[in-house]
């Protein structure tokens, strides 16, 4: 019912060119619009995703963006759910199409997470994205919370520091082949294992960067797909779920249980099993978070064995984070979930970057995002339409 007729990601990096987030939004929207072969006057709903007004210094960003994009007399709103903002915006768009309220929805995620504020300020603001009255006031960094959770996960699963290093190497290797990626770096295992400890066991090179950038998709109802877009992939399942906001309040503090429920809901809607997913873009805010996601999403019955056997590698049976993920491609928060869905759409249509496009295009792809520490999970399943 809901097809991705347009998609684009801008460069993710730290901008030093004097451009603003409003430029990046315009750039990504115009490119998506061109891909969709629609006219801007065909768009009847605009959904924007940005994590925080503190980043942009713009309240009600949907209003100014609609104006910048020449979209008038339409519904224009913003969706926010921390790190999950972008994927939740995609879900809001899908629901709008499914309800019959919209024919074509433009979804645009963005955030100037790198260039507009000092990184220490961004880190402080992020700590308020957990419970501000407990973790926020305590000054616990996101890295420290993820570090506590991954230690429990490591002790329960046997995941070790070499796995964390190898995943970091994989994602940044993929990023080297993605012209739009922020961190195109080939690390050695030694470099990673000797980088500064931010919050043990997490070291500096295990962390995703703060990035600037924007991403967009255009969703179209099946009755209104432009004739040139017959191979547009379909969003066949969406699911979302939350968990207790305080890590200590969870029964399994090493597991991202909200993802398991989110995935179950998405699979039920799509009428497929997790084992049928052929590629995935996952939320690797930290190296270990990708392992926690793979396990929670049920993408493998033995994630550690599959990882060590390179099943999730770019040449593997089920590639994960071909884009480089947050760790390699970068993380302009509001743009990440939209960017994941855009990336999956390109891959399913055979339109991704030459050196990363897989030849045997799978039937299904998964985009999974979360806010907090696996607190708000949002999962989307897409189906290829090229055959």
């Amino acid at each position, binding site marked *: 019912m809901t097809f991705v007729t347009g998609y684009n990601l801008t460069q993710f990096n730290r901008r030093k060119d004097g451009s603003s987030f409003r430029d990046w939004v315009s750039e990504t929207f115009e490119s998506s619009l061109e891909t969709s072969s629609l006219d801007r006057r065909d768009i009847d709903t605009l959904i924007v995703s940005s994590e925080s007004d503190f980043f942009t210094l713009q309240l009600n960003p949907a209003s100014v963006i609609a104006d910048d994009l020449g979209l008038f007399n339409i519904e224009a709103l913003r969706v926010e759910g921390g790190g999950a903002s972008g994927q939740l915006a995609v879900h809001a768009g899908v629901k709008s199409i499914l309800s019959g309220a919209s024919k074509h929805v433009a979804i645009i995620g963005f955030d100037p997470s790198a260039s507009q504020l000092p990184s220490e300020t961004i880190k402080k603001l992020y700590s308020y994205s957990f419970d501000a009255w407990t973790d926020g*006031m305590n000054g616990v960094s996101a890295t420290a919370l993820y570090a506590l959770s991954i230690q429990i996960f490591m002790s329960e699963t046997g995941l070790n520091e070499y796995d964390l290093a190898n995943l970091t190497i994989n994602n940044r290797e993929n990023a080297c082949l993605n012209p739009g990626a922020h961190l195109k770096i080939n690390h050695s295992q030694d470099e990673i294992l000797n980088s500064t400890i931010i919050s043990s066991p997490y070291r500096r090179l295990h962390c995703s960067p703060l990035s600037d950038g924007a991403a967009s998709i255009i969703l179209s109802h099946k009755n209104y797909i432009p004739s040139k877009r017959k191979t547009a992939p379909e969003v066949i399942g969406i699911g979302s779920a939350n968990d207790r906001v305080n890590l200590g309040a969870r029964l399994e503090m090493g597991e991202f249980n909200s993802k398991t429920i989110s995935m179950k809901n998405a699979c039920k809607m799509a009428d497929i099993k997790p084992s049928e997913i052929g590629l995935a873009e996952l939320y690797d805010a930290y190296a270990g978070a990708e392992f926690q996601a793979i396990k929670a999403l049920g993408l493998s019955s033995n994630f550690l064995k599959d990882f060590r056997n390179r099943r999730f590698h770019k040449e593997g049976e089920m590639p994960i984070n071909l884009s480089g993920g947050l760790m390699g491609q970068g993380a302009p928060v509001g743009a990440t979930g939209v960017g994941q869905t855009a990336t999956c759409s390109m891959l399913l249509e055979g339109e991704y970057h030459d050196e990363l496009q897989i030849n045997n295009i799978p039937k299904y792809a998964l985009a999974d995002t979360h806010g907090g520490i696996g607190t708000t999970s949002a999962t989307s399943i897409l189906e290829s339409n090229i055959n």
Partner: protein
Amino acid sequence: MIIKQKLDLNYTLSFGKMTRWVSGLLEGKAIALKCSQCEKSSFPPQRICDCSSSKNEWFELSGKANILVKTSGVDGDFAIAKFEGSDNSAVVRLKGFKIDEMNGKISSCDPSKPSLNLIPIKSGNE
């Protein structure tokens, strides 16, 4: 072109029902909520219990806690700790812990920054 802009925000925060929890932190007391239906206690306090009940009462824990897992590095020293008498765990800031020290107690904090601090329990410190 670049223009520097500074935003000064002076919030006046109130905590409503959670005032007991926050004032406890300032005094170095662990104030928890106990569910009136299933008797499960939570620290940090939960407005709604896992059993779905919204009926609860405040009570004071001993303030002693066992550390389940620690992290340290340039972002500071933190842990997940289980307070004596609480059914859940809490993320705490660690103050002055050695690597092998795993028992602590709550300590008071800067009144302008209500935080959950844990100091080690040593002989004479208990």
